[in-house]
């Protein structure tokens, strides 16, 4: 009986990925830190302090270059509201958030210069073109690459300050189906669709203070500003029935949009009970309330409207992180950590683009010293978001129950000189 329908319904092509933190934040900025719950603001671990705390960079004893990449594999399941039982799954090719940091300064100088290139926000979600929520979303890809030149100054052995300028470049691609069905000459049915595609850029900054009152205790405080990614004259492409009465309703060819990447304030504490053991705690506040709506302004009317807007009304959220590393030997250091991330998405606002929920992350990692100058980092992070049911009544989203998990292995290489 079922096959009678399936034969006519066609098969689903589903693939996807999702950001690994609240909203579309991707907290994957250093392989050592990922291995210990992404703590790092109150620690001096390596060149990734350019991101975690520019104030701590000048406390690094050596110059170096660090390259790292994570293989983000996230899957989301959707179940339609009861008593419906249809489910959809996303599945995507690996997305690869990366980080590259380099710092340099004279050995005795209190000044350190650095540059970081990293990907703190991004999302790749592909639900396909046949799932129940396709008129909300087929596929969304958000990319933002931050480039951050940084200067750090060691005021004293106990105090460091630093600042970086952020230039962000990225892109957005959003595809959704339009509920207009036409019959192709082949006899098959085709649904309409729209694709919005554009390059985006924005500016911001990253400042931090690092304070180490004793050998065993260190503190860090950073502020990473909001970066407003602006799309100008992105492309709008419609696939529609050819009747002029229809196409005249969809005249737009270009769109403008602004997407806020929210500010973060992070307070971190590092504690070294022994020479070999380091424990870190971070509390991160993400100012998601900057994300009020997703709005596209068109250069010509779409169904009589010059723009489309759906409310997001995210709320500020906190992330709590705990991690530790233990230096087993000169060659091997091991790490473990965990975090809890409150979702910024309020009830009624869940969307298939970020079907977010409070999430739990656990991680482990290690560093192998391959030589005096070369270290290899490896990390693995598992994220499990709570199952969440929402009526999506305020966001124009897709009501139902969502469940997300992610597996994120990563490797990094450090070269010190």
């Amino acid at each position, binding site marked *: *009986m*079922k096959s*009678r*329908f399936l034969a*006519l*319904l066609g098969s689903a092509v589903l693939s996807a990925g999702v950001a690994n933190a609240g909203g579309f934040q991707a907290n994957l900025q250093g392989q050592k830190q990922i291995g210990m719950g992404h703590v790092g603001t109150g620690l001096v671990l390596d060149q990734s302090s350019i991101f975690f705390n520019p104030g701590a960079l000048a406390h690094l004893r050596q110059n170096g270059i660090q390259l790292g*990449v994570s*293989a983000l*594999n996230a*899957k*989301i*399941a959707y*179940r*339609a509201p*009861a*008593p*419906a*039982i*249809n489910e959809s*799954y996303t599945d995507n090719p*690996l997305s690869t958030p990366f980080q590259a940091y380099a710092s340099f300064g004279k050995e005795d100088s209190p000044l350190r210069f650095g540059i970081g290139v990293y990907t703190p926000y991004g999302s790749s979600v592909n639900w396909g073109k*046949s799932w*129940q*929520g*396709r*008129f*909300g979303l087929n596929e969304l890809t958000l990319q933002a690459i931050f480039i951050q030149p940084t200067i750090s100054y060691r005021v004293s052995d106990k105090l460091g300050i630093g600042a970086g300028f952020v230039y962000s470049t990225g892109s957005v691609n959003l595809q959704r189906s339009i*509920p*207009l*069905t*036409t*019959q192709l000459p082949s006899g098959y*049915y085709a649904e309409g669709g729209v694709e919005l595609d554009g390059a985006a850029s924005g500016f911001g900054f990253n400042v931090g203070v690092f304070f180490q009152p004793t050998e065993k205790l260190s503190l860090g405080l950073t502020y990473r500003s909001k970066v407003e990614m602006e799309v100008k004259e992105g492309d709008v492409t419609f696939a529609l*029935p*050819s*009747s*002029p*009465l*229809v196409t005249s309703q969809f005249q737009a060819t270009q769109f403008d949009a602004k997407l806020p990447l929210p500010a973060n304030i992070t307070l971190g504490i590092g504690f070294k009970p022994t020479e070999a053991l380091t424990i870190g705690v971070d509390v991160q506040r993400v100012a998601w309330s900057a994300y009020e709506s997703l709005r596209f302004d068109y250069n010509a009317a779409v169904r009589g409207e010059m723009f489309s807007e759906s409310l997001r009304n995210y709320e500020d959220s906190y992330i709590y992180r705990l991690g530790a590393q233990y230096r087993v030997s000169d060659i091997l250091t091991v790490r473990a950590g965990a975090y809890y991330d409150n979702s910024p998405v309020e009830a009624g606002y869940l969307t298939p683009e970020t079907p977010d929920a409070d999430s739990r992350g656990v991680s482990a990692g290690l560093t192998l010293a*391959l030589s005096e100058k*070369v270290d*290899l980092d*490896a990390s*693995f992070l598992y994220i499990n978001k709570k*199952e969440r049911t929402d009526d999506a009544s305020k966001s*124009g989203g*897709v009501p139902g*129950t969502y*469940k*997300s*998990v992610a*597996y994120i*292995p*990563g*490797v990094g*290489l450090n*070269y010190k000189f």
Partner: protein
Amino acid sequence: MKNVFYRWGATALLSSAFLFTGCEPEFEDDITVSRGDLDLSKYVAVGNSLTAGYQDNGLYLEGQAYSYPNILANQFSYAGGGPFAQPLFSQAQGNGSGYLRLAGFTATGSPLLVPVTDFLATESATSPFFKDEFTTEVQNFGIPGIRLSDIKTPGYGSAQGNPYFERITPDANQFQTYLARVSASNPTFFSSWLGNNDVLGYATAGGFSGTITPVATFTSLYTELITAMTANGAEGIVATIPDVRSVPFFTTVGPTAKPLLTAAVAAAQAQGLPITGVSALTKNTPARITITPASIKDASGGSILLTLTSSAYLPLIGQPTGRYWRELAASQSPTNAAATLRGYLTTFQIDTTRAFGLDPRNPVPSAFVLDDTEQAEINTATIAYNNAIKAQATAKNLAVFDAYEFFNSIQGGFMLNGVAYSPAFITGNLFSLDGVHPTQRGYAIIANRMIEAINAKYGATIPTIDVTQFRAVLIP
């Protein structure tokens, strides 16, 4: 250094790829499906065109495949439902009775509807009877055109009866009534959505032809039908009859014709014609009524409904024309059109040389107008029928899909899965190109409502279906 990096990187990626395959997100609760108190092993559907899957002014294979009984049966299969046999047309005769398709739009935006005439199952383009009978088991007894008042008519399945019932009636049983046929089907669960045509035919004819079944007859027959269906303890669902005035067949033309007629009447008054509105026939009589443009129903008010069939003729208002009567005569009596036409003109006292609609001597035909009197008759009957239906549901402890309430509740439109629905013609996604029958999507939405009613009545959790997998009107 590079080699090390590659080796480690490759190992990490490979091991992760291995991990992922077994790590799908899982929901905390398994899917719950339960039949409750129901025995769904043999489902039988009783009804008319709606039950058959009729849409776009015809019954064809695709519509049959997506009929609401077939959707119900598909969902019942999750909860112990058995097979469900429908009298499907063959692929070679897949266009069935023929139907209307949307070929495009006129310059003014009116839909161009053209008949599909290939791959038909009918004997010829003019004969509504079918080439091949369907004599194997049937569980969907949806017969387009059947009224409740037809269910005890002997010969309704004969070559002089209803072509759709004739198709599924073996020649040897040609005098078996519809009631006898469905009574013998011995279901464990049934649905009944009968009675629409007991008012609909009169309504869509604008009161010009057809009759309204007397309420006493309706009540008696409905009681007999439900008693027969439940004789062996079957449970089931009954559906009420929608307010036919809420379908696009009656609501589409009025709003566009209103300004047209307002202008035509004003122009005639300016030339000194002593009229206050358009002249129209009422019921099947030569009596004239006057329809003021303001009384035509649109968003701003009014009550008079104009049929979808009137849209081709209303542009002729003010012209000396007898086109409607000529075409009616040709369709009713192809061999003797001229004499038939003369008969019409005499009976209804028509002078086709006068200004159509503006001069009482050439009034708008009754078939295009559902006036207040006719509407009142229809509404009174519909409400009385629905009371009879609901009374039987209560007496036999059956679930009810209150179609009357449902179609009235959606008049303002609603959103579902990011799609806007309304009773608007074509753009509303719910009604097919005949303006009376739902689209496949509309039928799926109705099926889900029925499942919800069944679940509530019988403590079952039969799953609803993803309605986005069904199409609405195909747009060229």
